């Protein structure tokens, strides 16, 4: 067996946690318990988990507006996340950030980001700090196919090569930049080819296949950690929900989501594979499902019960370290 069962169960649990978390966010948003703009990542769980499962708390990730999955995969507390998404004082960012600005520096998660292409330059910085300080930590930036066309990202790809930074650029190609097709907005045939032209190893993978994505991430992370410079990955995936929760998704094809859920559900594919190979038992995974559902239920309950920030003391707190 190429993977030990502890690893497989951890991967399954994390993917499932993301899935249930996102599905519950959608429900709570619809119930009016989650304010603002929320972008769910259900369907893309395998990439987040394959990318982060081998990273330590001192390795750095930079995420996107669609960042819940990356945060959970990097070890952020889901209860603290739910509180944050509900704008509560005890949330991961004290209710100041919300869904698009979750960060947990203790876990090496330096922030979701509401500016497309905002995270990649920052991850270069994290990688530069690691290289300069000699910590051997790596940085991994997440971005969508949409972010690949942002000037900041194109500059960062070159910059990382020039400075030989330990940075893995993960591009999750879910086929849509908001409501525009990736095949329209990416002028090139292949994003992986385009990234390779910057002078770094760059590979494409089916992101719905956890194992293929994990193996590629493992090589990319080793490459960065060994001081060989950046590595780029294009992982093809499916976004089960809209660009934002509540998006009518008129741009999507008839039955597209239904078919994707049938045929390209990364968790379903993972389950089928581990059962077929005899690596895990169904009842062990079912037990995890029950635990995860209970955990998310607790997160929602605690989130709803958590106190709001106090404008008197919290509104002006933390604008500066000192002023």
């Amino acid at each position, binding site marked *: 067996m190429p993977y030990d069962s502890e690893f497989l169960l951890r991967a399954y649990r994390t993917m499932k946690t993301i899935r249930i978390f996102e599905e519950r966010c959608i429900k709570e948003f619809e119930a009016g318990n989650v*304010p*603002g*703009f929320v972008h769910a990542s259900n369907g893309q769980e395998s990439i987040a988990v394959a990318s982060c499962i081998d990273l330590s708390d001192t390795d750095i990730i930079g995420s996107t507006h669609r960042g819940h999955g990356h945060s959970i995969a990097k070890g952020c507390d889901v209860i603290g996340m739910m509180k944050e998404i509900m*704008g*509560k*004082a005890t949330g991961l960012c004290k*209710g*100041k*950030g*919300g*869904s*698009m*600005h979750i960060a947990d520096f203790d876990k090496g998660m330096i922030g979701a*980001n*509401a*500016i*497309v*292409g*905002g995270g990649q330059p920052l991850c270069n910085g994290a990688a530069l700090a690691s290289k300069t300080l000699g910590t051997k930590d790596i940085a991994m930036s997440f971005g969508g196919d*949409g*972010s690949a*066309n*942002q*000037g*900041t990202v194109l500059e960062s790809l070159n910059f990382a090569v020039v400075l030989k930074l330990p940075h893995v650029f993960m591009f999750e190609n879910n086929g*849509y*930049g*908001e*409501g*525009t*097709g*990736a*095949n*329209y*907005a*990416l*002028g090139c045939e292949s994003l992986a080819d385009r990234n390779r032209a910057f002078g770094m190893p760059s590979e494409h993978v089916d992101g719905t296949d956890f194992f293929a994505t994990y193996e590629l991430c493992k090589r990319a992370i080793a490459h960065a950690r060994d001081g060989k410079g950046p590595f780029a990955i294009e992982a093809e995936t499916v976004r089960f929900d809209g660009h934002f929760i509540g998006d*009518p*998704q*008129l*741009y*999507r*094809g*008839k039955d*597209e989501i239904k078919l994707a859920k049938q045929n390209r559900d990364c968790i379903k594919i993972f389950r089928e594979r581990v059962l077929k190979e005899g690596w895990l038992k169904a009842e062990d995974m079912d037990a995890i499902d029950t635990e995860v559902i209970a955990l998310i239920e607790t997160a929602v309950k605690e989130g709803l019960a958590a106190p*709001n*920030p106090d*404008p008197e003391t*919290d*509104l*002006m707190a933390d*604008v500066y370290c000192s002023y």
Partner: protein
Amino acid sequence: MTNKIKGPSSIKTYREAINDALRQEMRRDPRVIILGEEVSGGAGCEGQDDAYGGVFGVTKGLMPEFGRERVIDTPISESAIIGAAAGAANNGLRPVAELMFFDFIGVCFDQIFNQAAKFRYMFGGKSRTPMVIRGTVGAGWRAGAQHSSMLHPVVTHIPGLKVVMPSNAYDAKGLLIQAIRDDDPVLFLEHKIMYDLKCEVPDEAYAIPFGEAAFPREGTDVTIVAISNMVHRAIQAADELAKEGISCDVIDPRTVSPLDEESILESVEITGRLVIVDEAHERCSLAADISSIVAEKGFASLRAPIRKVTAPHAPVPFSPVLEDAYVPSVERIIRAVKDVLGA
């Protein structure tokens, strides 16, 4: 009040009025194009075209009428969008570029302030850059720190740019038409909380000149200058105060660059008291700017210190309770008015 356009009209939302202005100008002038992210939506997708019409639905229906050649969905590349608009404006088009959230000027600011704003002066008056940048501003959507800013002071500071901040559907239509016909780069800032606000809007195309304030309430005790969505809170405050016998002169500058200084100074000459309401942070804000103008040019008229009601010196918080405390409230405006009256 400036003269309103006569003729057939209908009740329209702020959103519809802006759409109306774009449609009428695009029909009138084939050089007018729209470009931005999701201005139509659905490009390269299997589903419906014009799926969004902008994330707030403002440009909905324009692509079906004018085609993808003139309503251009772009990649998520703000520097390229604004630069292309400026370059196209120099070369015969009249582009209306959209920044989905005006916070995104952070990504493309060079093309705005080093490029578009400076061409005319730097090239000795030889160039024209007839472009409009539409962008959504303001808090209230629980959209967090990077989607809720009021950055009008940043662009108002820059010579060469004109900055328009309509507070209602009537002004939005007339000012956008003026912006499109204007030969200079214009930033047209739409407060996202106002898209569903309705008022009577003339059917015909009309242009409202820049630099002419509107006067939604007239009064003699205190002048209140308010910008964008704050105009509505100022009106509410004025109506509340009227019940107590306090008469407020509410001024909506409508465009902050150019700014109708004269109307503000004339009003303060009568009232001797000034409250300025601005959703931007106080330092270097429009409120600070207007305050300095009046302190310098209208000092003799002032009978009390000027009061500014602004957002605090902090980014916009996400949590609804904090965001509500962040945005200047009607109560704060009332308190400021009473303060300057010594009441």
